[in-house]
């Protein structure tokens, strides 16, 4: 499947069809999810209405982690099989992941305030998401840190792999650190056993976020491909302006099919 999608022209055709579907589907699913989360779901016996923040916080946390894994897999494909489209997928997905991570942190902080009286609670999971957020920022800064976008992409792929290897280590060390310094709050931040009426909105919102990710990814990848075409056209128009001194035995005009 992967190699079939490798051809950018085919990708553009497929994504042109898939994009509207993804976009409308994500809007519909998120709308349903919001209705379920804000209206249909019952308040929690302990936390009352505040539990509704969970329907945004938890799906965002899932997306934050899964998108980083997506970036890592795309980077591995880009490095191992020299797959140009995979590099563009990784580069386009990272900002979306960073946005979801930020949403997760902000909603977590807003949820922590009424529950534990502090805007930021150093809970193991929330702290790991914070470190993940810095991994995202590091990747995005590195990819855009070079003048030559190709160079940034390849180096970013290596960083994504280094990051994904470190993720479980960071998660383990933060949990270890958390057990050492038990934070002031007594109520464990863990999710209570979810009643079905609470689980459904959670899953619907998660599906909505996934479709939103897919739609955004396709838009950003198409933008990246267009920008590459623009750069190539500018490079060629600059090249054609350069005087060709040895035009008598001109090199055959076949485009060089390059690895």
């Amino acid at each position, binding site marked *: 499947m992967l190699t079939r999608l490798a051809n950018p022209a085919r990708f553009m055709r497929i994504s042109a069809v898939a994009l509207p579907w993804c976009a409308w589907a994500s809007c519909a699913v998120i709308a349903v999810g919001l209705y379920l989360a804000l209206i249909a779901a019952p308040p929690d016996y302990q936390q009352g209405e505040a539990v509704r923040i969970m329907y*945004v916080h938890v799906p965002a946390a899932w997306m934050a982690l899964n998108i980083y894994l997506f970036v890592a897999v795309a980077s591995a494909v880009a490095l191992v099989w020299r797959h140009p489209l995979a590099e563009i997928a990784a580069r386009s997905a990272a900002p979306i992941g960073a946005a979801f991570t930020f949403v997760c942190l902000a*909603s977590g902080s807003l949820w922590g305030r009424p529950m534990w009286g502090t805007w930021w609670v150093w809970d193991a999971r929330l702290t790991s998401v914070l470190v993940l957020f810095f991994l995202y920022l590091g990747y995005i800064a590195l990819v855009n840190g070079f003048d030559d976008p190709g160079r940034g992409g390849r180096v970013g792929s290596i960083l994504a792999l280094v990051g994904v290897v470190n993720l479980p280590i960071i998660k383990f060390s933060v949990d270890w650190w958390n057990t050492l310094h038990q934070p002031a709050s007594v109520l464990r931040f863990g999710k209570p056993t979810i009643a079905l009426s609470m689980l459904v909105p959670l899953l619907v919102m998660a599906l909505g976020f996934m479709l939103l990710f897919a739609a955004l990814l396709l*838009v*950003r990848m198409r933008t990246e491909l*267009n920008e590459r075409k623009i750069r190539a056209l*500018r490079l060629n128009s600059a090249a054609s302006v350069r005087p060709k001194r040895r035009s008598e035995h001109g090199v055959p005009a076949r485009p060089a099919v390059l690895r």
Partner: protein
Amino acid sequence: MSAYFAMGGYAVFVWPAYALTATVLGGLVLYSWQRYRDSIRNLERLQRQVSPR
């Protein structure tokens, strides 16, 4: 109706959470869509310049 918006006293936390999510994700959607439209427009303009020659 207003009781609903009070969110059992937690309105000041629940609504900002959803508003923030909407602004961040919505902002990213608008920004990406805007850049997408720009890239299409530039590409067509460049292709018109190159092809008629």
